[in-house]
C-alpha cells in the first residue's frame, strides 16, 4: 500500500517536470528578484557607450575629411577648367585682330600709293564697311601739325569726328604700321563704337586710316549657344584692367563679374583686351560639384547608423552579460536547491551499529545543477546485524530524485518486513519501468552479520562492493541481476562471503569509477589500488583519500560512497 502511494507521488512529480508544455519561467519574471527595480532602470538609462561615440566620431571625421578633399579637388578642378575655357575664349578673341589689322593695313598701303590713292582707298574699304562686315565706318584723314582732317569717309560718319580735338590727338598718335591704335568706347552706352587707326606716309603727307566697329547695344553681348563663350559669364574690357568705362561687352548684367573668375589678356593693336570670365554652371558637371555634400550627408547618415548599431550591439552585449550573471546566479541557486533536496532525501546521520564503524561521502557531480539519483542507507536489524544499500537511479533531476526516494522508502518497508536482500530486489521489480519512466536503478544491498563477519549481498546491475583489508582488496563477486526497472524473468540471487577481521566494505555508485572513454575495469582497478594503499588509515581518512584520488579532476556524475569497517 505504501508502495502504491509513493508511486503515485513519483508519477505526479515526474509528469510535472517532464512536461514540455510547461511554460518556462520568463526571465523577466525572475529579474526583479535578482536586480532591484530601481537599479535595473538606472542601468537602462545609462549614457551612450564610448564605443558608439568613438564609432560616431571616427565616422564623422572620416566623412569630413573625405568631403573636404572632394570639395577642394572639385574647386581646383573647376579653377583649372575655367582657366582652360577662358583661354580658349581668348584665343577666339585674338582671331578678331587680323580681321581689323589686315584691311586697315591694306587700305593704308592703297591710300599711300599714287595720286588716286584716295579713290582707290574708297573702293577698297567699301567692301569692309556695312552690316555684318568688320566696320560701320571707315575714313581717311590727313595729318599735320598735330591735327587731323577728314579727307573722306565710307559708311556712317565716324563717331570720332564728333570730338575734333580727341580725333586729332588720337589719330596723330597712330603708328605708321602694325599694330593699329585703338580708341573707345566712343558714343553712348546704348550705341557705342570702337575705333582703330593706322598711319601711313605718302611722299610729304601723312595720312591716317581710321575705321569704327559697333559694340553691341547696351554692350550686352549676344552669345550663340555652343560657342566658346556659351558656358561663361564674361566681361570684355579694353586695356589691361577691368575698368567699368572701358567695358566693351558683357553677357552678364552683374558687373564686375564676381565669384570664381579667370582673367585672360589678349593684345589688341596697341592696346589689349581683358577677358574676365566666370562659369555659368559647374564646368565639371553637377555631380562633381555636389559630390562633397552628397558624401557629407551620406557619410553622416552612415556614421549615425554605425554608431546606433554599435550602441545596439554594446547594449545587447551588456544585456547578455547581465543575463549570464543572472543565469549563473540561478544555476547556483538551483544547485543549492538540488543539494538541499538531496540531503533531505538521504539519511541525515547513519545509525550506530555495535561492532562496526560507518561513514559516507556524497559528492555532487561537476555538471550537477540538478538533483542526482544516488542514494545510500544503513539499517540496524538486530543487535548484531544490519542492512546496507547503495543505489543509483539513472538520469537526473526531480524525476530521478523522486524515483530514488520511492525506492529508498520501499526498501525500508521491505527490510522492516525482514526480507532477505534478493527478496528486497525482487519486490522492487514492479516499482519502476524504464519504458514508461525512462529511468532504471542499479541497486546493491545486503545484510551484514557483525559477529560472524559475514555479508550476504544481492546486486541489481550495480558495480561490485569492494572489501578492503590491510594489504588486500577484493571485489564482492556475487551474482548480478538486471537493474530495477528492466524487465526480466531471471530471479535475483544473493551470495554470501566472510570478510577478514578489521575489513572495510566500500559500497559506491558508478560515478566513482566511471571515466569517459575508459573501460570500467580500469576504474575498478584504480579504486582497488587506492583503497588498498589507504587500508591502514582511519575510516574517514580512508574515504577522503579514495575520494580525493579518484575525483582529482572532479566527477562528472554524482557519487555516493558508503564505508563500513569491522572493529574486530
Amino acid at each position, binding site marked *: 500500500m505504501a508502495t502504491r502511494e509513493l508511486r503515485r507521488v513519483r508519477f505526479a512529480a515526474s509528469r510535472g517536470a517532464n512536461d514540455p508544455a510547461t511554460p518556462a519561467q520568463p526571465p523577466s519574471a525572475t529579474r526583479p528578484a535578482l536586480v532591484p527595480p530601481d537599479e535595473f532602470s538606472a542601468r537602462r538609462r545609462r549614457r551612450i557607450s564610448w564605443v558608439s561615440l568613438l564609432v560616431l566620431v571616427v565616422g564623422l571625421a572620416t566623412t569630413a575629411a573625405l568631403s573636404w578633399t572632394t570639395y577642394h579637388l572639385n574647386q581646383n578642378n573647376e579653377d583649372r577648367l575655367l582657366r582652360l575655357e577662358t583661354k580658349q575664349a581668348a584665343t577666339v578673341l585674338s582671331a578678331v585682330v587680323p580681321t581689323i589689322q589686315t584691311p586697315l593695313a591694306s587700305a593704308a598701303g592703297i591710300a599711300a600709293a599714287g595720286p588716286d590713292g584716295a579713290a582707290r582707298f574708297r573702293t577698297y574699304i567699301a567692301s569692309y564697311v556695312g552690316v555684318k562686315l568688320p566696320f560701320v565706318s571707315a575714313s581717311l584723314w590727313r595729318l599735320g601739325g598735330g591735327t587731323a582732317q577728314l579727307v573722306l569717309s565710307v559708311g556712317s560718319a565716324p563717331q570720332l569726328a564728333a570730338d575734333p580735338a580727341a580725333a586729332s590727338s588720337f589719330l596723330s598718335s597712330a603708328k605708321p604700321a602694325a599694330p593699329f591704335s585703338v580708341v573707345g568706347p566712343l558714343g553712348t552706352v546704348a550705341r557705342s563704337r570702337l575705333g582703330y587707326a593706322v598711319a601711313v606716309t605718302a611722299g610729304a603727307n601723312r595720312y591716317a586710316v581710321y575705321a569704327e566697329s559697333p559694340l553691341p547695344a547696351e554692350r550686352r553681348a549676344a552669345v550663340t549657344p555652343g560657342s566658346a563663350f556659351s558656358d561663361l559669364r564674361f566681361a570684355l574690357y579694353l586695356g589691361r584692367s577691368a575698368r567699368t568705362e572701358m567695358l566693351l561687352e558683357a553677357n552678364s548684367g552683374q558687373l564686375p563679374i564676381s565669384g570664381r573668375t579667370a582673367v585672360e589678356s589678349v593684345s589688341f593693336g596697341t592696346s589689349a583686351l581683358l577677358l574676365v570670365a566666370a562659369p555659368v554652371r559647374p564646368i565639371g558637371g553637377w555631380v562633381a560639384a555636389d559630390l562633397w555634400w552628397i558624401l557629407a550627408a551620406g557619410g553622416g547618415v552612415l556614421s549615425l547608423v554605425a554608431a546606433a548599431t554599435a550602441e545596439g550591439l554594446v547594449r545587447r552585449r551588456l544585456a547578455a552579460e547581465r543575463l*549570464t550573471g543572472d543565469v549563473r546566479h540561478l544555476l547556483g541557486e538551483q544547485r543549492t536547491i538540488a543539494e538541499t533536496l538531496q540531503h533531505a532525501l538521504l539519511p541525515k546521520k547513519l545509525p550506530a551499529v555495535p561492532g562496526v564503524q560507518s561513514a559516507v561521502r556524497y559528492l555532487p557531480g561537476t555538471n550537477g545543477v540538478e538533483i542526482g539519483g544516488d542514494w545510500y542507507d544503513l539499517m540496524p536489524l538486530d543487535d548484531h546485524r544490519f542492512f546496507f544499500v547503495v543505489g543509483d537511479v539513472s*538520469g537526473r533531476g526531480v524525476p530521478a530524485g523522486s524515483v530514488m526516494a520511492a525506492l529508498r522508502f520501499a526498501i525500508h518497508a521491505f527490510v522492516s518486513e525482514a526480507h532477505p536482500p534478493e527478496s528486497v530486489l525482487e519486490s522492487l521489480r514492479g516499482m519502476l519501468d*524504464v519504458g514508461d519512466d525512462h529511468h532504471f536503478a542499479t541497486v546493491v544491498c545486503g545484510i551484514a552479520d557483525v559477529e560472524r563477519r559475514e555479508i550476504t549481498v544481492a546486486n*541489481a*546491475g*550495480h558495480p561490485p562492493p569492494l572489501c578492503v583489508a590491510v594489504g588486500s582488496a577484493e571485489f564482492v563477486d556475487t551474482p548480478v541481476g538486471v*537493474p530495477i526497472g528492466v524487465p526480466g524473468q531471471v530471479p535475483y540471487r544473493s551470495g554470501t562471503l566472510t570478510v577478514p577481521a578489521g575489513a572495510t566494505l566500500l559500497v559506491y555508485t558508478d560515478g566513482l569509477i566511471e571515466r569517459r572513454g575508459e*573501460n570500467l575495469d580500469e576504474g575498478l582497478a584504480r579504486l582497488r589500488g587506492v583503497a588498498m594503499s589507504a587500508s591502514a588509515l582511519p575510516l574517514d581518512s580512508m574515504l577522503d583519500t579514495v575520494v580525493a584520488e579518484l575525483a582529482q579532476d572532479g566527477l562528472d556524475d554524482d557519487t555516493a560512497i558508503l564505508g563500513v569497517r569491522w572493529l574486530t
Partner: protein
Amino acid sequence: MADLDENASLEPQFCVHVDDAAGANGDVVVRLSGDLDIAGADEARAVVDQALGQPRSRLTFDLTDLRFMDSSGIAVLVAATQKVDTVTLRNPSPVIRRLLTIAGLVDIFVLTP
C-alpha cells in the same frame, strides 16, 4: 557554467542517426556515436520512438562509434527492449560491453559480433 562549457567542447558531439532497412533482415538501424549521456538521451529516445512508430519485432543499435554511455543512455537501450522482441547491439566497444556486463544487462540484448 565554465565547467559545462569546457566539457562540452572536449566531448565528441553526440549524434543519432537512423538507417531504414540497413539491418541484416531489413531492420531499422539506429546509429549512435559520440557520448550518449543525459544531454543526448532525450534526443536518442525520441529517435528510437520514431523508428518504432510502426510495429516491429527487431531493432538494431549500431554502437561502432559510441565512445561513452551513462546510465541515461543505457536507459534508452533498455527501454527499446520492451517495445520489440529483439534488440541487437552492433559493434559495442569493450568499454560499452563491460558497462553492460557490470550492469547485468548483457543478456537482455543480442550483441554482435
